[in-house]
């Protein structure tokens, strides 16, 4: 019962930011207030009668499944969408933002999931883009750098210099630069859309720190996230949306995790992860690596047996994805030995990987997993058509069935031939990626962050699928940054650190043990 709840209670707050809670009693004057906001797209209402009030110095979490309307609501606040009904009040006065720029100038900044930075320009040039300080008609580079340095110092950010090229920064640092840019507009309201989605745990700490500093400076923060732990770590107030409706707004301390999840999903949370099948004995070794390595990883030994889920845990950049890329031939191993079903194989290209009946669900589904402008069916047939053309017509007949079994709505399955995948929700897109690989009947399937950015319902479908696959004798290699997922799903956990396997833990190990190995503090 309440497995996830248990886990959240077990996890010590990695970064405890709420030490001095009484210091930020809600100030009486809201900075932004939405009343009865509604939004329609092509006659379908996606937001109905939403009320939302943001106070200075408070972190307000906005939660809900994908498709609940969180992103639309953020875009209304950001001036990207204009609401059909209701009012937006800034400091008590009704406002409309014709463009995102107007919102930004009024002090309402938004940090979207896709980065809005120029990778080839420096930090300072990005932060002050469009507002470069001038001296006698030319850009005052000294002041540009000085102003940026002051902003960075103010926020306690070390390790980022104004003249660093943004493209050379880590994902977390780029996120920070975005937030710094928002702060530079004197933003009083900053909304963040899943800011940790692409971050590893030690990078999340940097973001927490920044959010806390902003809160202390009296900024109102609207924080959209799928990760419950973050919400409880950071938020003062929680608002839940479901299917475009406002379900709940309450102080975080008064909403228990299971009530929160129940409100979000509309169903009980017990048994969020499918139960481990009882006394399953793993079969023969499907995939084995001995001393494999290339420029990014070294000395990798691992075995995945039929019916087994082996997780690769570790920090972002530790080499987890690189192991997957080595196995699948994207960045082939240059050393060591790899066998599939006991046969030594050399996989130098993804095409050879598919021929050995390996599959890789990549971590970035939009750029690596899908042809966004093509239909569901075309995407689901992609691998078959490219690598196994003779079998593709026959095997692709299984696509509608596979989609249905993945819990994709019947209407989508029916229009699979025409519906472009870019219009599907993140969860459904991920299911199309999975369908694309399932029809190739893989023996080894590597899942790289398979539940990133998808809603709770779709996550459950992915977990169920993993169990089904292993029951059918496939071997699953799971890469995930979500520790609860790793701990609950994997039979064995291999922890990767600095390009090497740092150690192995049994499934169900504590999060602390995994983190200790991953960070090397043990």
């Amino acid at each position, binding site marked *: 019962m309440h497995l996830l709840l248990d886990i959240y209670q077990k996890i010590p707050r990695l970064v405890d930011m709420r030490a001095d809670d009484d210091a930020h009693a809600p100030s009486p004057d809201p900075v932004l207030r939405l009343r009865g906001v509604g939004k329609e797209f092509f006659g379908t209402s996606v937001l109905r009668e939403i009320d939302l009030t943001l106070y200075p110095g408070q972190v307000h979490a906005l939660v809900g499944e994908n498709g609940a309307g969180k992103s639309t609501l953020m875009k209304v606040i950001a001036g990207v969408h204009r609401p059909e009904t209701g009012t937006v009040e800034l400091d008590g006065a009704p406002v409309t933002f014709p463009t995102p720029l107007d919102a930004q100038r009024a002090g309402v900044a938004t940090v979207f999931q896709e980065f*809005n930075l120029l990778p*080839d320009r420096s930090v300072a040039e990005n932060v002050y883009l469009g507002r*470069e300080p001038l001296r006698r008609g030319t850009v005052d580079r000294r002041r540009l750098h000085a102003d940026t340095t002051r902003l960075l110092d103010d926020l306690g950010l070390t390790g980022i210099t104004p003249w660093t090229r943004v493209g050379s920064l880590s994902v977390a640092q780029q996120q920070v630069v975005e937030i710094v840019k928002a702060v530079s507009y004197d933003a009083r309201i900053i909304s963040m859309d899943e800011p940790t989605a692409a971050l590893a745990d030690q990078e999340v700490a940097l973001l927490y720190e920044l959010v806390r500093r902003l809160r202390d400076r009296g900024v109102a923060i609207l924080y959209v996230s799928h990760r419950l732990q973050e919400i409880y770590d950071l938020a003062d107030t929680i608002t839940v949306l479901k299917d475009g409706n406002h379900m709940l707004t309450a102080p975080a301390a008064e909403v228990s995790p299971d009530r929160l999840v129940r409100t979000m999903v509309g169903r009980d949370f017990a048994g969020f992860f499918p139960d481990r099948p009882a006394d399953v004995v793993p079969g023969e070794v499907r995939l084995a690596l001995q001393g494999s390595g290339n420029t990014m990883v070294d000395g990798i030994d691992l075995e995945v047996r039929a019916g087994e889920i082996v997780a690769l845990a570790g920090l972002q950049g530790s080499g987890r994805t690189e192991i997957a890329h080595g196995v699948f031939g994207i960045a082939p191993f240059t050393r060591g030995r790899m066998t599939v079903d006991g046969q030594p194989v050399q996989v130098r290209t993804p095409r050879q990987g598919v021929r050995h009946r390996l599959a890789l669900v990549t971590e970035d589904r939009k750029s690596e997993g899908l042809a966004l402008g093509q239909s569901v069916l075309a995407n689901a047939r992609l691998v078959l058509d490219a690598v196994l053309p003779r079998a593709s017509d026959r095997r692709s007949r299984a696509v509608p069935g596979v989609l249905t079994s993945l819990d994709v709505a019947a209407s989508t399955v029916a229009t699979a031939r025409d519906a472009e995948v870019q219009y599907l929700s993140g969860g459904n897109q991920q299911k199309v990626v999975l369908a694309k690989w399932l029809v190739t009947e893989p023996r080894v399937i590597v899942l790289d962050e398979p539940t990133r950015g998808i809603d709770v319902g779709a996550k459950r479908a992915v977990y169920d699928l993993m169990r089904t696959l292993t029951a059918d004798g496939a071997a699953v290699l799971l890469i995930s940054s979500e520790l609860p997922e790793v701990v609950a799903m994997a039979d064995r956990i291999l922890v990767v650190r600095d390009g090497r396997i740092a150690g192995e833990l049994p499934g169900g190990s504590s999060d602390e043990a995994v983190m200790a190995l991953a960070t090397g503090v043990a």
Partner: protein
Amino acid sequence: MTTGKISPAGAGRRHHLGSTEIVYLALVGILLVAGVLVAVRGGTLFAQQNVSYMLTQTSLLGFVAIGQTLVVLCRSLDLSVGYVVALCSLIGATTMAGDPSRVWLGVVAALAVAAGVGLVNGLIIAALRVNPFIATLGMGLIVKGFLDTRFKGPEGEVPLAFQTFGYTRIGPVPVSTIVMLLVAAAVFVLLTRTRPGYHMFAVGGNLDVARLSGVRTGRIIVLAHVLCSLCAGVAGLLIAARFGTGNALVYSYGLDLDSIAAVVLGGTLLFGGRGSVVGTVGGVAILAVLDTAFNVLDVNPFFKDVLRGVIIIAAVALYARRQLDPASRRARFTTGGGDAA
């Protein structure tokens, strides 16, 4: 055994050659190779007349390529520059009509027409959202049609006073080359010290980011195209000064594609957002050195084009490899095993 700790700061700490540095290294390399080849044949590449020829070559293509750099940085393109050069040579020469007192009038008229063409190009691209390739190809055809119907060969007469722009040298260095370098310096300042310059990088890097940051993207694109055409206009005046007349057939020189080749050789990304005018000048110089060396070595003109093509493709392939392979730059282990660090 220490594991190579990968930190974002550490990844950039090792100095990597920038594109511009590579361009100038390549230029030096090509000069050396060409110099040796010519010396083997008993000549000398660095004889005064060869150097002058080289520098003269750089100035004509230089003007056009400097302008092209601006539009390419904005993720645009200008295929009409060759026709603008021809048009401006004619407008300059016919307006001057051999009268020294009308020199300035001719210069102003030619540059005004050039700016007008650039303005129209920019507006078509920024306001009508026509793909720059198509927009400027179309504009080029329109100008070509006008040239072919209106002018039947060389026309106009450039007074001797203005012909000095084409012929005068200070030592071995033609005045036109000096003017070209001054224009390059001005564009360098524009790109590295002014808001419009900064915004050109932003528009080319990501149009939406630029717009959401308050950059008036349309104006920037139009400005880049006007400046590009103006540079082509100056090249047209240079042609007129050298020939003593305007000539429509100049458009067959292939300045449009050569200028794009020079820009790309100079390390500017064809997709915009990254590049420099210093690199472009290097790219122009590389093409000029090749041209001079081929002439001195008496290479078959058709084979000359083959060589130029091969060199351009090889150079761009080299850049592409550097850009596509970031993994190799943050390698943690060497391919042979063990730590890289």
